[in-house]
């Protein structure tokens, strides 16, 4: 109850401040539109299906890219964590690669794949792969050794050991990395989409700029934030809650 009240007060204040600044007309409305004109833009964007299509296209891309990087990242991370040679060589490379903004892969992707869907996917994968890999490596190392021993002792080996023991055992340690990977994937996608006619949210955002339509720009920005928030809440928060319930961890917010 109290939390909801604080929540409400904060956003009402933000809304009020925005309205006030817009009404004072310090900046012209085409640079600083009032909230309702952004609301209007949102309404129209959904009504003519532009936003629905954009959300659909973007979500499809980010899901495919993210899933690929989760699978690849787990394999890579597990390899790096369990092989001393890989750890010494590739471990450092992975950390240093993380300092490279994912959009830096865009020119390379364009030359390799051409101006198409695959180039965007490549950037999304490169954006989130490292987070997932490093999280998996870390999770595999943090995971208590006893689980692996108990699993082997009870007759699990190879893929069964990974799937039924190592993966679930490391999940609490990698869930924050998976979450970070998702955030990076989402960001990389929007960035890449802004660079070419892609139908996605990124392109719709740029279209607002091209049409000098600040309300549309803000509307799409709000959409991008909202989708990120909803996925975080629906997927990762519930995953964390389930883990906490099963493992009996005290809820850390």
């Amino acid at each position: 109850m109290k939390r909801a009240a604080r929540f409400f007060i904060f956003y009402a204040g933000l809304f009020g401040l925005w309205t006030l600044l817009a009404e004072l007309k310090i900046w012209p409305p085409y640079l600083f539109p009032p909230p309702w004109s952004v609301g209007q833009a949102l309404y129209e964007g959904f009504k003519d299906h532009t936003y629905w299509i954009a959300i659909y296209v973007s979500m499809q891309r980010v899901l495919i890219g993210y899933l690929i990087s989760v699978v690849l990242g787990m394999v890579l991370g597990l390899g790096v964590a369990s092989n001393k040679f890989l750890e010494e060589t590739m471990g450092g490379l992975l950390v240093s690669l993380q300092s490279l903004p994912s959009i830096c892969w865009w020119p390379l992707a364009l030359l390799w794949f051409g101006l198409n869907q695959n180039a965007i996917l490549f950037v999304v994968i490169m954006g989130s792969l490292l987070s997932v890999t490093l999280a998996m490596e870390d999770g595999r190392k943090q995971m208590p050794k006893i689980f692996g021993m108990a699993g082997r002792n009870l007759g699990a080996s190879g893929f069964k050991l990974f799937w039924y023991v190592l993966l679930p055992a490391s999940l609490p340690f990698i869930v924050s990395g998976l979450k970070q990977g998702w955030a990076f994937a989402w960001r990389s996608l929007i960035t890449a989409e802004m660079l070419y006619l892609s139908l996605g949210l990124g392109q719709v955002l740029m279209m607002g700029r091209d049409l000098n339509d600040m309300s549309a720009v803000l509307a799409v920005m709000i959409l991008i934030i909202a989708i990120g928030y909803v996925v975080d809440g629906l997927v990762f928060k519930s995953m964390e809650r389930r883990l906490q319930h099963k493992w009996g961890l005290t809820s850390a917010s």
Partner: protein
Amino acid sequence: MSTNTHDFSSQLPIPGDYAEPVLVPARTDVKRTGKNPLTSVLPAHTFAPQASKVGLKDICLSYKTQTGERLLALDHINLQVKPGEFVCIVGPSGCGKSTLLHLIAGLHQQTSGQVLVDGRPVQGTGTDRILIFQEHGLFPWLKVGENVEFGMKMKGVSKAEREEKTAYYLRLVHLGKFKDSYIHQLSGGMRQRVAIARALATEPDVLLMDEPFAALDAQTRDLLHDELERIWSETGRTIIFVTHNVREAIRLGDRVVLLTFRPGRVKSEFPVDLPRPRVLEDVDVARAAREILDELREEINRSLEAEYNVGTKPRVEVGA
């Protein structure tokens, strides 16, 4: 050590050439609990008394320390464990007694020597030997029942059979109502009982127990001693039980094996002929413990010297 002599020839159909005086007395005493395991256990002892279930032949284990020198952890360990026997291994911390169990389980590889099960050398892990850890090692992402059926699932046992056996083994450890609980919802003693059920559910011939009750409070431990003894007599498994607690070893074991401090060697073996069920506080148990403790104390002092670089030997009272 006092020996109880029993005359079995009048009670049991033992063949004439049978000559195995040590094992059977312990077994008949189990009768006192009201359950008779003899029918299920006897044939193995009776007709193949010489065959050992687990044999350790000249086991050596050495490993590199961080400073690069080689450390000998286990030094020519020889041990024969008969089918259905309950052997306790005691020794000071750092004598490699847990490592020995890991070798038998196939989780580690010895440097030289052989681990034999039914006369065959051990190659890696196998569900005929299940290890129970001190920190239970249950899977917190699975419910109690799912933990118990895990080994069977890995083996590819059908779902119906898994469910039936899971229910059976959970009932055996008196946890029938906790099938759908998560591990963190159970007390320490209950967790250890789940670990025992999980181990038994794969139907291993040999149970390896690595200080399974060390982290429990005294009352819980007493209860679990009773339960383990009951389960052992009902299922006829061979148990190798590692502990640092001499009284616990005498409470449970048919035989107590004492290891030396680093490198671990078999220092001596003590057959325990006291009638079962034994009570930790019994005078007989205390007297038997005394004998072992005297020898163990030397090893503990050696371990203290090594670990704290103590020049003079400190007096150590070993509490059971």
